[in-house]
């Protein structure tokens, strides 16, 4: 009986508090917004990388190697073609090395020219030359750098049959060759879901995991982790469950490594795996990694904190149970410090996570209060950069639509109302509307307490009334209607729809029901 009652209460409470908005909808508002106007994000991890390191004992690049002179480059390539296509192993090695050097220039490597010179067939062939490790290595390096280009470049490498060859090379006894293969495969996996799945089909995962040994050097492990992360990356479609299950134990293991770069890429892998529907999140949670993720939130390195925070943010955008798992792992004690992080990108992600926790049931909202997240939240509303303020505003709106009256009162006392009223001047229509929604929620709470008048005064005192009134002139219909509705309902002194008709003469209404008599059923 008890259980039943609770869930019933819950339904009434939701349908009322959220005014028909399903909480899940509020959580998933980071919808598939694919179109971007901005530059690609600087803090995200890189999809493809070129190997531009130079081998230790090599002399610096000659002036020709660094020129942008088309003539010179063209001549160099012709020479390479001649060498590579010849039968002399020494010349082949020389040609390959020259190509690799060209492709490793810091600026404008001639990827297209190398492809158009028809060199890829030979390079892929060389990958199989177990008798000549140097040649294998130089060819692998060249192909890695070609694959690091655009999708078209990567496509050329794949279509020349490099994938099976690289997978075979993973097992090479020469560590530098195996490492180069790891790297090349990472570039191919990073191109998108279709090559990623192609690699998985070719059995790349077991081959990679076989190299994950305790004695592997850190540099090697870094590359390996990055390639694994690219195999977890991208949606539409996600990597299939069986592949994820195969990789997860190793990724979890890597998350306990001491190297920051490995930690970073392992975290990115987790962030990709959690950036999806709840069943994807579940797979990650079941590994028991949450406490470690929370621990990583406390690291100093931005490269670790960013993906760890992204992962946590993704998890708390899941179901109430998943969110609770994150809370139980201690995420709420890590968030305040991240909300005060010097980098605004971290503040923003932290605020996003808080906004999703605030979209949960009031028990979770209570935990936000208990763990002291309201003060930093209000700080962000006041002083955060715009993107952070926008997330913080969502947090307030979610909080006020799901919170109890007492919780809402508490939030107002912490200064959130004044802060969001100030943000009504924001030059972002959605944010303004979301704030109006929050204000409306706060008024609904005040109605229940019979404190509407007091709230009206408070709103007016801090200049909010002026701003809401001003929004009645907003160009956006939804905004001006929301503003108008608030003003009419709460700030003006003082509503017809006909369903039965009443006949009227000049002097009277004619009393009596219409003849049409139906059966009444209620």
């Amino acid at each position: 009986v008890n259980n039943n009652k609770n869930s019933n209460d819950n339904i009434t409470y939701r349908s009322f508090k959220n005014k028909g908005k399903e909480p899940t909808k509020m959580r998933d508002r980071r919808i598939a917004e694919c179109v971007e106007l901005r530059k690609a994000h600087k803090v995200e991890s890189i999809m493809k990388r070129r190997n531009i390191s130079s081998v230790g004992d090599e002399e610096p690049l000659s002036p020709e190697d660094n020129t942008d002179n088309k003539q010179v480059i063209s001549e160099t390539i012709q020479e390479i073609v001649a060498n590579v296509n010849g039968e002399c192993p020494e010349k082949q090695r020389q040609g390959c090395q020259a190509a690799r050097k060209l492709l490793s220039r810091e600026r404008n490597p001639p990827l297209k020219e190398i492809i158009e010179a028809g060199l890829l067939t030979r390079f892929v062939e060389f990958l199989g030359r177990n008798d000549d490790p140097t040649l294998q290595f130089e060819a692998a390096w060249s192909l890695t750098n070609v694959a690091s280009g655009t999708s078209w470049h990567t496509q050329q490498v794949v279509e020349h049959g490099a994938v099976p060859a690289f997978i075979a090379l993973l097992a090479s006894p020469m560590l530098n060759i195996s490492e180069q293969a790891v790297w090349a495969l990472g570039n191919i996996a990073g191109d998108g879901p279709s090559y990623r799945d192609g690699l998985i089909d070719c059995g790349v995962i077991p081959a990679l995991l076989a190299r994950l040994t305790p004695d592997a050097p850190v540099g090697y492990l870094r590359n390996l982790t990055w390639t694994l992360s690219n195999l977890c990356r991208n949606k539409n479609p996600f990597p299939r469950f069986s592949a994820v299950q195969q990789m997860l134990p190793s990724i979890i293991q890597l998350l306990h490594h001491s190297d920051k770069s490995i930690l970073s890429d392992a975290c990115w892998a987790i962030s990709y795996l959690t950036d999806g529907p709840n069943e994807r999140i579940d797979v990650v949670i079941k590994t028991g990694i949450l406490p470690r993720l929370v621990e990583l939130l406390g690291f100093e390195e931005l490269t670790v904190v960013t993906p760890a925070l992204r992962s946590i943010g993704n998890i708390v955008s899941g179901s109430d149970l998943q969110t609770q798992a994150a809370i139980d792992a201690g995420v709420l004690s890590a968030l305040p410090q991240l909300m005060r992080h010097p980098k605004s990108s971290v503040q923003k992600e932290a605020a996003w996570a808080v906004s999703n926790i605030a979209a949960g049931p009031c028990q979770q909202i209570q935990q936000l209060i208990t763990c002291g997240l309201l003060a930093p939240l209000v700080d962000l509303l006041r002083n955060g950069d715009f993107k952070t303020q926008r997330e913080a505003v969502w947090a307030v709106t979610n909080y006020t639509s799901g919170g109890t009256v007492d919780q809402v009162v508490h939030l107002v006392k912490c200064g959130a109302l004044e802060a969001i009223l100030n943000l009504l001047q924001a030059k972002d229509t959605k944010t303004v509307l979301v704030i109006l929604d929050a204000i409306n929620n706060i008024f609904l709470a005040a109605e229940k307490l019979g404190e509407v008048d007091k709230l009206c005064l408070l709103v007016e005192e801090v200049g909010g009334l002026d701003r809401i009134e001003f929004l009645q002139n907003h160009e956006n219909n939804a905004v001006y209607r929301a503003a108008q509705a608030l003003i009419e309902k709460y700030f003006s002194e003082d509503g017809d729809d006909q369903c039965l008709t009443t006949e009227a003469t000049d002097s009277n209404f004619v009393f009596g029901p219409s003849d049409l008599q139906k059966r009444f059923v209620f």
Partner: protein
Amino acid sequence: MELNDRNLQTLTEYLQKTLSPDPAVRRPAEKFLESVEGNQNYPILLLTVLEKSQDEVIRVCAAVTFKNYIKRNWRVVEDELNKISDPDRTAIKANIVNLMLSSPEQIQKQLSDAISIIGREDFPQKWPDLLTEMVTRFQSGDFHVINGILRTAHSLFKRYRHEFKSNELWSEIKLVLDTFAQPLTELFKATIDLCQTHATDINALKVLFSSLALISKLFYSLNFQDLPEFFEDNMETWMTNFHNLLTLDNKLLQTDDEEEAGLLELLKSQICDNAALYAQKYDEEFQPYLPRFVTAIWNLLVTTGQEVKYDLLVSNAIQFLASVCERPHYKHLFEDQNVLTSICEKVIVPNMEFRSADEEAFEDNSEEYIIRDLEGSDIDTRRRAACDLVRGLCKFFEGPVTGIFSGYVNSMLTEYAKNPGVNWKHKDAAIYLVTSLASKAQTQKHGITQANELVNLSEFFVNHILVDLKSPNVNEFPVLKADAIKYVMTFRSQLPKEQLLESVPLLVAHLQAESIVQHTYAAHALERLFTMRGANNATLITPTEMAPFTEQLLNNLFKSLAVPGSSENEYIMKAIMRSFSLLQEAIVPYIPTLIGQLTHKLLLVSKNPSKPHFNHYLFESLCLSIRITCKADPDTVDSFEEALFPVFTEILQNDVQEFVPYVFQVMSLLLEIHTSSIPSSYMALFPHLLQPALWERTGNIPPLVRLLQAYLEKGAAAIASTAADKIPGLLGVFQKLIASKANDHQGFYLLNSIVEHMPPDSITQYRKQIFILLFQRLQSSKTTKFVKSFLVFINLYCVKYGAIALQEIFDDIQPKMFGMVVEKIIIPEVQKVSGQVEKKICAVGITKILTECPALMDTEYTKLWTPLLQALIGLFELPEDDSIPDDEHFIDIEDTPGYQTAFSQLAFAGKKEHDPIGDAVSNPKILLAQSLHKLSTACPGRVPSMLSTSLPAEALQFLQGYLQAATVQLL
């Protein structure tokens, strides 16, 4: 419709006729054009006339007609006829840009609007080449053409500033950026270069600067949603040039006009907005440029004059500084004492000065001055912007800023003291500065509620404000007097009571001032002081403290209404109302005189009601006069009726719509004061109150219902005996009201009064029909509000006529109806009933159903007995269920399209809550216990057995509590 000369000729003739001032010629021509606009080629004919006609007037007329045609018909609405043929659509899109660009400006504007209407529907998918066509024109070198393109682009892109982010919108913006951003940037640079080449050619400059202003607007639109990659990469170009333009001054571009903003001002204003956009949204990327902009904008402010034409620029510029200075990481730009001092001295203080434009408004346009100064409709003014900057700076620098300003205030006051006659404006600025510095939070109701603790408001009052208030010549320096009065009003919550009391007689004296602003402020200040609350929520200023000034106050208030320009002054009327309310019985001696003045005023304003607030307070004052006087002596009600009824009759006869609802409220108040029978004068009016025309106006409904309720309370017997033929009409009103979701509760008010007061015999024949109507409404559109009212009504009916009567009438309408209502309506919904009295009625009614209705004990209804009892206990013990189904949330807003607030409730005509059950039942829980006891004695054993089988334990526990409290037991 073929494209031939004859049709062109005909079209030209009809266009000509649409310009005729004679409606007999114009209307048929307009009708004709509308009747043929569905024909193919019609728009092409219009465009041909527009292009080829020799008559300039006809060309413009064709352009306007074309634009309106596009506006009405271009959008294709699903399931509706497509009014423009596809070939016409294609032809229009193929030609319109060219046509626009080759047309003179007047026509260009119309066609540009038409393009943006078409663009809103068709761009980008159905008009893919529009952008490229536009961009190609940038190279034309013809700035007439280029400005046409820019204007069109602006009307196409400006929606990016207010629409919500969506994939669709962003894809469009991305497309625009891809084709437009680079050429726009090139055009921007080229235009700036041309400005240098043509630096001495005023005509060329004018065209070029209009281009720059338009380009800056486009920049704002394209950068609004997010920072595009292109603009991030080209920030250096744009920001460097914007910065240069801000600092640019070309003597040739300075206009002589003092009022109208020139091109240079418009451009710079837009650049300030652009900088503010970047500072707010793209902080991280914009940081390297921001300090330069702060300096440039600050210099701009320092060098810009006081003329009105600069107002928008100055207020935008100050707002920019205000928004930047309160952001923590720009704090350092302002921290330096010298910087702060300069900003205070050169930006804030000059913009707080009382300008000659203000002085003119003070004298000649007092109404507007008061609205701006008192009600804060001064969003775009310099003073407002300067105040916002002060507040922004105080966030981090309250101490230093207060210090700097104190110095200024002192020096301005010293200047004033040297020669008040000449330097009075210095004191005005000083007071304004103190006010803006001290105000941290403010409301209409309380004035300043939070003040800067560093400013000693009380001391400033004694040293500088009191002098002006006490000045024997009330008409000298009216601006300073108004300032002083406003100071008291603004800081009323901060000043000690003694200072307020000291001010009261002084304010009363200022009511006599000639200056409208001054006596209005005095009235307003007094009104505000009288609303202040002290200990125990009593008024801060008591009637006793006011006794010495009462006569003077009332005299001066009414005298000031006689000043030309103040005859319908709402502030004064409100002060009169407030004074009555404060003084209460102290005004009784003056009422005989005052009521004459008030009625006289009412008669005057009823000829042409134009000031709604004034009129409202006038009626409130009348209500107060009546209440206060009749409280002391109810018999005086006759004399009020004698004084008021002639005016009221006139208002009702002339149907002065604004006043009718007020008249009904005052009449209700008067009628309710009568203790014996209803006077015949009221009865004569009764049939008229039932006229449908009156009820059609929403504003009449609440006061008319209230008035009819008063009739029923005082004259039910009279109606039954002398106006029984009017009962169907009265019920007709009820029927009309319950048909409406918005007014159904009013219908129930009326019905409840009928059931409560009308002799039962007089309504017996209508009872069944009443219930059928209610059931019809319940069936057709059940809303929470209706159900709540319905529950209260049936329970009231049960209390009045008994449970058996209720059950019989239900089951008579339809077999088993009673059970259905109990099961589907009462039990599930009674928890929603709100209000003490309403809940009590339901409790008593349900108790009767439970204990006095044999059908519920002995028929198939028996299964409902325990659930009903449980629902009743729930009503007693559980919190109110205030949930509303999802689909009902927006009823109030969405289903009342023609909503008009014609009804203004008079606070002082208020009605006391009425409890029809009254003392007959003091505790419904005890009544339930006693009634159950009685029932159980009639059929021993049954009640306990029903309780023990199906009442939940918790409910049973509550019930036992009631039984104990009533000291009864169940048998």
